[in-house]
Every structure is written in C-alpha cells, then in structure tokens.
C-alpha cells in the first residue's frame, strides 16, 4: 500500500488510493470507563499499548477524554503522541493484518533539513498496532520520503494518481505555495520542481492563532462556554457558536485576528518573491487556506486556494508515493 500521511498540529490527514481519513491531532489520556459507557463511540480510535494501557485518538479524545495531549513544538515528531497519531492513521487506512507500506510525509520548511532524517527513521520499519475490538495489525514501512510540507499541494496538482507529471505548466514553471497550517505558515518557491531555498521561509502564524484569539474573546464574553481547542476552531470556521440557545456572531473577532496575520504573510511573500509577479501561480493550501486565502488573493491576483486545501498536501504525498513505488 502507498500512503500519503500529513500529521499536522491541528489534524491528521491520510490518503491511500480512494481511502482518505482525517481526525484531530489529539491523543487522550486513558479513560477506560468512559469509552465503554458511550454507546455512539463505534468508530473511536482506541489504541492499546503492550502494557494494556489504552489511548483514545482523534475526535473521540476531543469529546471524551478528561485530559488531552496536543503539542505544538518541534520535538513533537519524536514524542509518543506523534507515534500514536501515525499508528492511528495507518489503522484508519486499512484493516489488513499485514501491510507493506511506502509512505510520503512532510515537515514544515523551517525544520525540514534538520529533522527529515529523524522523521523518516520513525516511520521506517515494523509497527504493530492493536486497536480495541480489532485484530492486531502489522505495518511494515519499507520506504519513506519526507518532503517540505507545501510540496504536497503542488504535487497534488502536478501529478496524476499514478504519480506521473501531467501538469507541464506547473512542473516547468516557477510557482509559489503558501501553506497555512495550524501553527506556522510555510512559503515555498519551486522552479521546475526544485525548491528555491532562498525564496522559502516559514512565518510563525497559523490558524490556531485565530482560534486562541477567539477563545480569549469567548472567555470574556461567553464565560460559561467551556470549549476545547478543536471546538473553538470549528467556531472560527463557522464564524459562530451557540450560547444558551443564542447564536453568537464571531465574524468581527475572526476578521480582527486574521487581518494582521494576513498582512504578515503577504509582507513575507512579497519580500521573498520579489513582488510575486514573475511566478506562474501562487497556490494557497492548508487548513487555514480558506481563512487567509481571500486576503492573499486581494494582494496577488494569480493566487488561488487549491481544491480541497485541507487534504491537498496528503493527496500530493500519496501521488508522490505512487511514483516512488513504481521505481
């Protein structure tokens, strides 16, 4: 099986063929009693460690766990929580008992050079996964490529499902990619599918910044509303929350948070790409693309939000995995 796996600070996205899955990048502390009492948790991802400890991953952890682990630091990729997200992604993609895998995944551009070896090593090799109410699975990752995250969005457009270059314009031109993640926004410049390092940078702004601003505002204005991070993010995307049956409009506070973020990203892109006019296209991707995209399009008329921006990186990873597996 070939898989594209995008483990972001906000959510895990994974694609293998027609199968695509996503779940929040959240690992819950063991809450055994709560698992079994909840009748609608049929699709909870519950991983069982060798010592019998259970971990709830994804949406179930957001909804049910008393304590959740969600990290936003560089060392995250070496943590047990990251490993559990990876194993959960594997087991969401297939129920097969023994699976040989070619994996493509990504790292933020700022960490890419330093951390790609570490991340590749953590993927490569054999991983046994035991999920509650399922037979044990063995995943053998025989090949793994780690690429700069924003490359995924470009490859999702430039390659077909076999990993062949089908968009000659994107493959042979100069393209800018703005990948708006949860914590960072990556700016990548690519010419003829080669990264232009001097035109690539990472800006420390992301969708979670807006979620935090909205969360602070809700604490002051809707003090009885106890929302987890991901629930606040859902409110940001929908631009409203419900409070004692009333709809609270979050539009103004969301805009107020997004404008300075957008200015920062646009300033960096303008400087890096010398105004951006010589680029064939600017692609906007990532979970925050729909939030920042309109601002970026106002500044760069050849910018556009890629189709299905949340999955774009994972799709590009998978298409690249298809290519690698053919070689």
């Amino acid at each position: 099986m070939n898989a594209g796996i995008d483990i972001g600070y906000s959510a895990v996205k994974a694609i293998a063929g027609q199968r695509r899955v996503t779940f929040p990048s959240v690992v819950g502390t063991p809450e055994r009693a709560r698992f079994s009492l909840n009748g609608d948790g049929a699709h909870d991802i519950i991983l069982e460690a060798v010592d019998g400890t259970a971990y709830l991953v994804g949406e179930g952890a957001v909804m049910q766990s008393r304590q959740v682990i969600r990290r936003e630091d560089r060392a995250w990729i070496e943590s047990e929580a990251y490993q559990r997200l990876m194993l959960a992604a594997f087991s969401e993609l297939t129920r097969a008992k023994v699976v040989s895998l070619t994996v493509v995944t990504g790292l933020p551009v700022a960490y890419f050079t330093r951390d790609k070896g570490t991340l590749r090593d953590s993927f490569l090799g054999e991983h046994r996964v035991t999920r509650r109410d399922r037979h044990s699975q063995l995943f053998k990752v025989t090949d793994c490529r780690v690429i700069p995250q924003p490359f995924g969005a470009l490859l999702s457009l430039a390659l077909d499902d076999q990993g062949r270059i089908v968009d000659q314009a994107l493959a042979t031109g100069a393209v800018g990619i703005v990948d708006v993640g949860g914590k960072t926004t990556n700016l990548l410049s690519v010419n003829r599918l080669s990264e232009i390092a001097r035109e690539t940078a990472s800006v420390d702004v992301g969708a979670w910044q807006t979620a935090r601003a909205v969360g602070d505002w809700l604490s002051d204005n809707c003090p009885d509303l106890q929302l987890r991070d991901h629930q606040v993010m859902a409110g940001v995307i929908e631009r409203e929350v419900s409070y004692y049956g009333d709809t609270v409009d979050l539009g103004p506070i969301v805009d107020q948070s997004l404008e300075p973020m957008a200015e920062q990203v646009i300033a960096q892109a303008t400087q890096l790409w010398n105004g951006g006019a010589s680029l064939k296209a600017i692609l906007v991707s990532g979970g925050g693309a729909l939030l920042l995209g309109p601002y970026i399009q106002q500044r760069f008329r050849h910018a556009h939000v890629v189709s299905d921006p949340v999955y774009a990186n994972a799709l590009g990873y998978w298409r690249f995995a298809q290519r690698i597996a053919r070689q």
Partner: protein
Amino acid sequence: MAKTTVTFSLDTDTDRDLLHWLEGLPRRGRSEAIRAALRGHLTSGVTLGDVYQELRELRRKLEAGAVVMAGEGTGSDIEEPADAAAALDNLGL
C-alpha cells in the same frame, strides 16, 4: 410462485439492434435470455465468478511466462520534462 407477463414496445429504427438480437433467440428460452440480460444489467454484468475466471486466466499466462504490461499505469505514454522529473525523483532523498 405466480407468473406475470410484461409487455414492452420497441422502435423498428432506433431499437433495431435489440430486435435483431431478440429475433435471433430460440423460440423456447427467450424469456430466460431476456431475464438474464436484465439481471446482468442490474448487476453491471460482472460477477465474482467472472473476476475469478479472469484472475485464473492471468495466472495461467504468468505461469506460461507471458509479460504483462501495466498499460496506462506505466507512464510510458506521457512525456515528462526530464529535469523536472529528475528533481522530483530526488525530492526528499
């Protein structure tokens, strides 16, 4: 089980192919043939038995030493820009 009879109309011009097929059927067994055709249409005409038969045929060919081309999936029919393809193949190494 009770039997029921269904009648339907055909156009002598636009449905000529169907008329030709129907006329070619043996007088006894027409209903059976029509039922099979309709059922085949409802199930896309491909049964598990068909798939198994195809796999057996493929296996027989492979064991006989045949070279099986992957067809569309080989990429041989797509011209890739050489430098961009090379850059791509080295990505992440």
